[in-house]
């Protein structure tokens, strides 16, 4: 059970973010919840690729490192692009939120639904 504990904690972080997206009224809180879910998703990928007692996947000129001692480099390559894509998504959401505020005067999603103008 303790060998699955990091996965479960990461999953709890993801669920907190998803819960915030469903239950909050302010657009900024929804964006905050989405950002937390993104961090949890990237963290889960790196957690899967960790090897106990492993080293970073970079060779060294002074000592010979066997590739069997390294942590998994493939999830790291995938997460590298995923982090930058997450930033682009957050920036786009913030731009839409600013436009909505300019048009409707509030960040509250229930009030925006009423003012369907």
């Amino acid at each position, binding site marked *: 059970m303790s060998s*699955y*504990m*990091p996965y479960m904690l990461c999953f709890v972080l993801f669920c907190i973010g998803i*819960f915030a997206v469903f239950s909050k009224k302010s657009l900024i809180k929804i964006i905050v919840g989405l950002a937390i879910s993104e961090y949890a998703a990237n963290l889960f990928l790196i957690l899967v690729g*960790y090897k106990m007692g492993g080293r*970073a*996947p970079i060779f060294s000129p002074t000592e010979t490192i066997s590739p069997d001692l390294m942590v998994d480099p*493939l999830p790291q390559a995938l997460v590298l692009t995923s982090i930058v894509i997450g930033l682009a998504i957050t920036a786009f959401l913030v731009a*839409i939120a600013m436009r909505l505020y300019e048009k409707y005067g509030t960040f509250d999603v*229930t009030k925006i639904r009423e003012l369907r103008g």
Partner: protein
Amino acid sequence: MIELYVMLGLMIAGAIIAIEVRNLLSAVITVGVIGLGVSVVFLLLKAPDIALTQLVVEIMAVIIMIRATINTGIASVDSGTKRFGSFLGLAVVVLMCVGALPVMQHVQRFGHPLMLVSSRYASGAVARTGAVNAVTSIVLDFRGYDTLGEATILFTAVVGVVTVLRARGRKSEDEQVPESEE
């Protein structure tokens, strides 16, 4: 790995604080701190490339989010929670937990990854690519198409942001735009 559990516990506490605090500026700054915590956890998991990228991307995200909350004119205070949305969110979370339990039996135990494909990437990085950094050789040589796709996504996002935030374009701000509702 006690420091890993400590950091994860602190991040969960920070996430609960970030979504419950009333001042919006405090929520955004707390998300920034959670991002820094994620960067430290990446460093504990022996991924220095990712830790560096997460750190600088986190700083950029906090700058962008603060810009949205700080200049709204009214006091930036949270509006509260939706009651039906809370029940729906709780139901979805419970459903995800129930669905995740059988999946957990198939994921490898923490610390023993199933490196079927990446053992060939790691051992062939210097011989087939000439690069010493295995992650860079995967990103730019073995899986270069993914980087091309990421560049396309970034381009689309920049076009989208600039288009959404363009000032009312064609007519100047002096003359009145005739409204169509007459």
